[in-house]
């Protein structure tokens, strides 16, 4: 109780961190330019932004492990401006650098890792034993004490990293992208543990993330982009800086609707069969009206309007500051079907080849996996994976790092032979026709696989030759790639010097230069900023809708999964859910109940009460608590009663639409529960 009050009365407390006009340069390149920041005692402060925003530099400087060129920094009221003065704060700080488990020692066991960190901090044996016990129990790692770190899953590594950072009882923890690449359950787990620590030990946290949808986890945050702070404050306050609403509607024909909307609104996306529009400076009702008016003459279904998300605000703020220009996806003319691309419908591996797989009237199956298994020694990386991707469909393969996504792609593209099972891509059997498959597919790997020392044009030409594009089509294909990927101004530039977003589109263009009917994208958007990500998805939607290209994409961004027509979630090598995003959400509501958001003046108390009250899926999101309830009509008054009895005020309980993350967390937990019961 006492601690909880401390958090909420934090405004009066002296700041833990005070940053003024912070500047960090690497040689001539400016990484952070004039950032101000104040972290108060007892809060979880967030730094949100894409790669290269300057988050890591700032955090390292605050941890006293990186020098900086300008501005002032005070930690615990102690000035940090030299190596010697930085030493003065380190006893009270815990720092976890970026990279899942990379700061841990692979060869040492869980316990040995913890003991090493404790010895560095000269912890007495008694204190160590007590804290270790408590933290291992809290993170549910106690039974893995003797397991070498290298054999832990991503989520377990992350929790071990957290224990090691906390073992000496720091007052301030600095965590650099602790949730990147971790499965959604572990992510939630992580936030719950952090909230619990905050409650029980009064730890202050400075945490960075590249996931915009994690904003609600922070008390306050700074939105960073290219070394500057775009906005700072409480999540709600940031949304208010770029007010607006989001309208979502199912529309036919989608491509033409996107084009029409693009002329009036800057943030327009195609999501599954729907379009999603951000309408600035308008309450939901007015926004819905404006979108409806713009789309007059189209067949509209299920028009919904609601609050904007942080990513919308982020992009709107970028536009306001004129840091980016959100152009309509491509030139207007390019949206005319057929003209945009010059696909030859009779090309080998075209839609007609696959027709035999489906019955008459069935959409054509472009990719099919049947019981794929892959073992690496004793380790089963992929376990009986089956799915189908139809022509013109965007299929998302989701999962944490190490779930087996890349291995599946490698098997389907003929790079890796499967241990068991079979697959067909674009009508060719994966085992027998490895070479034939390669001519029919485009593949873009995590690393983009571009030649950094070649120019943009040289890269495209190289890929065209590798894929044996006939000489007479070469010119046309290169022009097509340049236009499609929006590379017109940069064809002569060296690839290595281009921003990540452009490199990504170039890699996509190179994968498409030989007109494949099937496209494999392996984590294509990791590290790309939201603007680049949206642009990329616009191209993918266009390819699938207008060109009927089948796209299999892997990602660990849950928000991206919404764009897919069909999803499969992988967990520990297996597919544990396979449906469309809408169907998955509907299924969650049918089986687990409605998602309720509970706001109150003392969220930590509310969290504890609701957990004890036996509700499902209780989790803290910033200052609000989420939970699942089967019978909403009964649950809302019950929750109100319970919290009022506990002396809380300003209580509100509102139903919210579940996100895909909610779906996956529920599915994974159900599976884990099943596994546990199976053992017993």
């Amino acid at each position, binding site marked *: 109780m006492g601690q909880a009050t401390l958090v909420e009365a934090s405004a009066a407390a002296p700041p833990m961190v005070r940053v003024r006009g912070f500047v960090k340069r690497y040689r001539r390149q400016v990484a952070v330019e004039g950032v101000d920041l104040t972290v108060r005692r007892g809060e979880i402060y967030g730094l949100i932004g894409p790669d290269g925003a300057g988050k890591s530099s700032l955090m390292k400087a605050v*941890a006293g492990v990186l020098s900086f060129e300008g501005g002032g920094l005070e930690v615990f009221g102690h000035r940090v401006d030299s190596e010697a003065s930085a030493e003065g704060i380190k006893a009270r700080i815990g720092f976890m650098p970026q990279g899942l488990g990379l700061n841990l020692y692979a060869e040492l066991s869980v316990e040995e890792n913890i003991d090493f960190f404790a010895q560095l901090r000269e912890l007495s044996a008694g204190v160590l034993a007590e804290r270790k016990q408590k933290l291992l129990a809290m993170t549910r790692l106690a039974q893995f004490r003797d397991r070498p770190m290298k054999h832990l899953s991503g989520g377990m590594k992350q929790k071990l990293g957290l224990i090691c950072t906390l073992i000496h009882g720091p007052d301030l923890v600095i965590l650099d992208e602790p949730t990147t690449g971790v499965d959604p359950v572990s992510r939630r787990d992580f936030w719950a543990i952090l909230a619990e620590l905050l409650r029980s030990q009064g730890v202050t946290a400075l945490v960075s993330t590249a996931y915009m949808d994690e904003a609600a986890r922070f008390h306050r945050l700074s939105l960073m982009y290219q070394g500057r702070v775009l906005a700072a404050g409480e999540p709600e306050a940031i949304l208010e800086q770029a007010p607006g609403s989001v309208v979502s509607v199912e529309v036919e024909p989608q491509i033409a609707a996107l084009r029409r909307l693009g002329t009036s609104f800057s943030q327009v996306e195609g999501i599954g069969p729907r379009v999603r529009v951000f309408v600035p400076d308008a309450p939901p009702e007015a926004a819905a009206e404006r979108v409806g008016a713009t789309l007059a003459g189209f067949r509209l279904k299920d028009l919904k309007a609601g609050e904007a998300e942080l990513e919308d605000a982020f992009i709107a703020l970028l536009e306001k500051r004129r840091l980016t220009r959100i152009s309509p996806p491509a030139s207007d003319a390019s949206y005319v079907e057929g003209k945009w691309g010059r696909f030859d419908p009779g090309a080998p591996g075209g839609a007609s080849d696959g027709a035999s797989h489906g019955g008459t009237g069935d959409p054509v199956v472009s990719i099919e996996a049947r019981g794929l298994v892959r073992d690496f020694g004793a380790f089963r990386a992929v376990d009986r994976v089956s799915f189908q991707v139809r022509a013109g469909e965007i299929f998302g393969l989701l999962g944490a790092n190490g779930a087996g996504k890349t291995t599946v792609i490698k098997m389907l593209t003929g790079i890796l032979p499967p241990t068991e099972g079979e697959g067909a891509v674009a009508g060719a059997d994966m085992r027998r026709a490895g070479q034939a498959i390669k001519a029919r597919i485009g593949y873009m790997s995590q690393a983009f696989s571009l030649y950094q020392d070649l120019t943009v044009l040289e890269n495209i030409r190289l890929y065209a030759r590798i894929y044996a594009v006939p000489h007479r089509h070469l010119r046309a294909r290169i022009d097509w790639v340049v236009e499609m990927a929006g590379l017109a101004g940069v064809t002569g530039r060296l690839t290595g010097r281009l921003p990540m977003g452009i490199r990504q589109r170039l890699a996509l263009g190179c994968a498409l230069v030989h007109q494949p009917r099937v496209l494999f994208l392996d984590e294509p958007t990791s590290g790309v900023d939201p603007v680049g990500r949206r642009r990329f998805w616009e191209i993918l939607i266009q390819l699938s809708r207008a060109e009927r290209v089948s796209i299999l994409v892997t990602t660990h961004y849950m928000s991206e999964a919404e764009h897919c027509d069909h999803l499969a979630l992988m967990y520990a090598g297996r597919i544990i859910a396979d449906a469309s995003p809408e169907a998955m959400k509907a299924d969650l509501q049918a089986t687990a109940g409605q998602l309720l958001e509970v706001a109150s003046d003392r969220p930590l108390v509310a969290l504890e009460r609701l957990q004890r009250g036996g509700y499902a899926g209780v989790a803290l999101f910033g200052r609000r608590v989420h939970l699942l309830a089967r019978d909403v009509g009964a649950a809302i008054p019950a929750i109100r009663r319970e919290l009022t009895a506990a002396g809380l005020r300003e209580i509100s309980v509102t139903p919210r639409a579940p996100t895909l993350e909610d779906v996956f967390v529920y599915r994974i937990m159900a599976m884990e529960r099943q596994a546990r019961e199976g053992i017993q």
Partner: protein
Amino acid sequence: MKWRRTWAVAWKEWREVMRDRLFFAMAFVVPSMILLVLGYGLSLDVENIPFAAIDYDKSALSRDYLHRFIDSRYFDYRGEARNVQQLDRLLAASRIRFAIIVPPRFQERLAASRPVAVQSLIDGVFPYRTQVSKGYVAAINADFSAHLLTDAIAQRQGIPRARARQFVTPIRLDARYLYNQAIRSRWSMSSGLIMLVLMVSPPFLTALGVVRERENGSIYNIYASTVSRGEFIVGKLLPYVVISAMNIFILWGFAVWLFGAPFKGDPLFFFTASLVYVICTAGIGLLVSLIVRTQAAAALLTMVITFIPAMLYSGLLVPVESMGRETQIEAHLFPTLYYLRIVWGSFLKGLGWPMLWGNVAALVAYAAVLWSVGFLSFHKRPRQ
């Protein structure tokens, strides 16, 4: 300096090396491999030189002459060739390294006291071997000539052959080989290679160990904690010094038992001096780790800056005294020179502290400089 924290770093490092198969191999297998491969392969003895001959004379004397070569342990007779063209082919294919052509009427002309020219074709591709081969050929030829002369004088003057021999070679060379009585290059090479291995292996391990932490990001555990840089450096390098100290014993064992090199000196002196040497070379690794960012670069740079001095400037292949003036100065800048003196002094000459202390002092000074520079350039709050 708190020993508990230093010990924590050292103990962590030790366990990592022992459990990581690749690192374990680099620590214990690779050093011995270098010694074995180079110890057997890098022999400078010129023996068993393959040769062929043409005997156009086919007399008793010409056979006698050729048998001087055939019976020598330096030569390996591959048979008689039919003609000069065949010799050319054999030389070109490197099947033989030299050839001897005895002209017709060899015996007849010698009996008539007329001079004879025997032709010798020697492969000149590798000058060192060519010179040695030529030396052997010339020596055998001179010996045979002296033999003929002795016979002629004895016969003509009617004196015993021993007396006649004194006339022919009045000065007899009486050579005694010190330290390495059998003049086996294997003795000096196997012991000398300890110098090379201990120059390459400790910095290799050290540089990779430190750079690996930086590459992974686990170095931030050190940066962000209260461990001082001195504690970190000592703790981090200690396991590598211990591993290298163990290697001193292993390599010493190989040299003595496998290659049969004698160890005549003071073992305590040798191991003390060797320990100083590995502390010194580990310091080289520390410096490398501060310059480069990736493990690949660390490995490459370490190889270049340790292997070359150890091979070329230490005196292992070419005596330092025979180098040019500038090269000699360069040679004195590397620790390898001093340690090689210690190695050969201990193994072959049986020397100890009284004769070699100066070299140990040079190594101590070298180590002190390297570690100080390493300490001063290591920062817990770097610029990037």
